[in-house]
């Protein structure tokens, strides 16, 4: 077995342990053996498990764990992908304006769209919003803020995010009947995550993450800059487009089901880089695995720390993420100067 395979198996094991913990921990105690037996038999109730316990697993904890895992994988993978194609260690779905764009798109869909088709219109509008957000941030960072430095892209992203969020707030004010619905979702919610959310997120996240996983080796080539990458025969423009579209699709899916959960795209890829080195052939797969595990565990803390109340998960990730952002900023200091 190669070193790479062993590391990958370790990553899968970490994810499985997180899933199991997510299923076990909560106000109703469930024996680990029972939960494991239930999981590996695809929902057959072991003899020691009550009907109520089985229902809690099937209807509450499992969908929540799945949605948390999908959202974590999507945000981490798209963070790593944005960082690669913009050659910018600070790039993240939130700082780039992708999430704000997705938020605005989803709000527009909720406020003006037909209520019967939310399952389709919300993710679609979120996707278009995410693409528009990244496009604006990239264009603004390059044209008006003078150059390709790490900070100019992020400043562009922050400007775009503030603007889009303002528009979103305005729409909410105009449509106060949908305010509650949108507001609860903006804070970042996994509390109500159910199978509907999983169904909405699965196709986009799987397509996007699979695409990013497949092109991971080419992401290393962009590291030497557009000119040299082109001289090595890479179609940089096309790759950047594919990656931005995939990452924005993943971001939009995450925002559609879980609202705004920040910093995951910074925390996870940077931690992975410390563990596996900087090559995207490792960074991307491990960002997917650890990203899923990370958000499942953070959600576990969010729902148990002050039980029966819940801490909004976005608050927790921001709490963890701000120091990481400072770390990333310091590491990239030389390039910014």
């Amino acid at each position, binding site marked *: 077995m190669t070193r790479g395979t062993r590391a990958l198996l370790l990553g899968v094991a970490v994810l499985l342990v997180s899933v199991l913990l997510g299923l076990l921990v909560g106000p109703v105690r469930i024996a680990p053996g029972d939960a494991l037996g239930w999981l590996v038999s695809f929902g057959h109730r072991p003899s020691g498990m009550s009907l109520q316990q089985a229902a809690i697993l099937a209807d509450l904890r499992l969908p929540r764990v799945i949605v948390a895992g999908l959202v974590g994988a999507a945000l981490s993978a798209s963070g790593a992908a944005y960082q690669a194609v913009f050659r910018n260690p600070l790039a993240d779905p939130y700082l780039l304006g992708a999430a704000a764009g997705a938020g605005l798109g989803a709000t527009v869909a909720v406020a003006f769209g037909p209520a019967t088709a939310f399952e389709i219109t919300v993710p679609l509008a979120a996707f278009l919003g995410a693409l528009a957000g990244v496009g604006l941030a990239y264009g603004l960072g390059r044209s008006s803020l003078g150059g390709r430095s790490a900070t100019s892209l992020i400043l562009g992203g922050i400007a775009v995010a503030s603007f889009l969020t303002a528009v979103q707030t305005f729409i909410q004010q105009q449509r106060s009947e949908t305010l509650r619905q949108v507001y609860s979702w903006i804070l970042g919610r996994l509390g109500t995550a159910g199978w509907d959310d999983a169904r909405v997120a699965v196709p986009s996240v799987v397509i996007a993450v699979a695409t990013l996983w497949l092109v991971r080796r080419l992401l*290393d080539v962009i590291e030497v800059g557009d000119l040299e990458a082109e*001289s090595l025969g890479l179609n940089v423009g096309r790759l950047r487009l594919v990656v931005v579209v995939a990452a924005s699709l993943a971001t939009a899916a995450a925002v559609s089901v879980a609202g705004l959960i920040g910093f995951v795209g910074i925390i996870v890829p940077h931690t992975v880089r410390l563990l596996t080195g900087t090559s995207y052939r490792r960074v991307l797969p491990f960002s997917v695995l650890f990203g899923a595990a990370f958000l499942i565990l953070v959600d576990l803390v969010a729902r148990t720390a002050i039980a029966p109340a819940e801490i909004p998960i976005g608050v927790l990730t921001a709490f963890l993420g701000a120091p990481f952002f400072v770390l990333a900023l310091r590491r990239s200091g030389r390039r910014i100067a």
Partner: protein
Amino acid sequence: MSDLDALELSGVGMNIDGREILRDVAFEVPSGSWTCVVGPNGAGKTTLLHAVAGLVPFEGDVRLWGVPIASYRRRERARRIALVPQQPVIPEGMTVERYVSLGRTPHLGVLGAEGTADLVAVDTALGRLDLAWARDRRLDTLSGGELQRAVLARALAQEAPLLLLDEPTTGLDLGHQLQVLELVNELRREHGLTVLSTMHDLTLAGRFADGFVLLSQGRPVATGARGDVLDAALIQEHFGANVRVIGDPEVGWAVVPVSGGR
């Protein structure tokens, strides 16, 4: 193939925002030779190399072993032409081995999976440039000379018959300058490479290259052998430098600045 010119330029021109960068550039690079483009700052040397590498649009005709370069697709072109830029981007944290393996990019499948041939090419390049010991080192821990060898190793792993070197000795001390140029010369002989380079140091250029192009304000003002191009009067005219060209049997050939007036 060897009787053909490796590279043939005619009527190459380029304008950026209405400003003329190159005009009527025409010369040949014989297969297996080392041709050096010299000229003052801003003469268009780097732009010319980028045009040959297909990285910037241009007018005119560039042929690679008789085939118009525009007819090659990007990857096909990258299998034939390797570029060593003047200031290569050094990705933070990347290992030497991974960096050299990027040279295999034009040979890989769509998704960039490597085969045995690719791993062998990377090993060979690392070994040839004495970097096998450094394969797991991070690029940003290497010295300037080692780094330049890593960049050359990447170009060698690319297995392209035409090597474009943009100021390959920038930032190196005299000893390392000579080392790098001698290395390029050895690689050229061993692998039958054709080299087109730019160089500021006219003495080193004159000692290593066998064909010369003097570029001034985007135009080729002299092409040919050393004696025709690296001439004191031409250097005075285009570099504004007062020099004497010496061919001392003991010291060798050199372009030496003359102090004071002529």
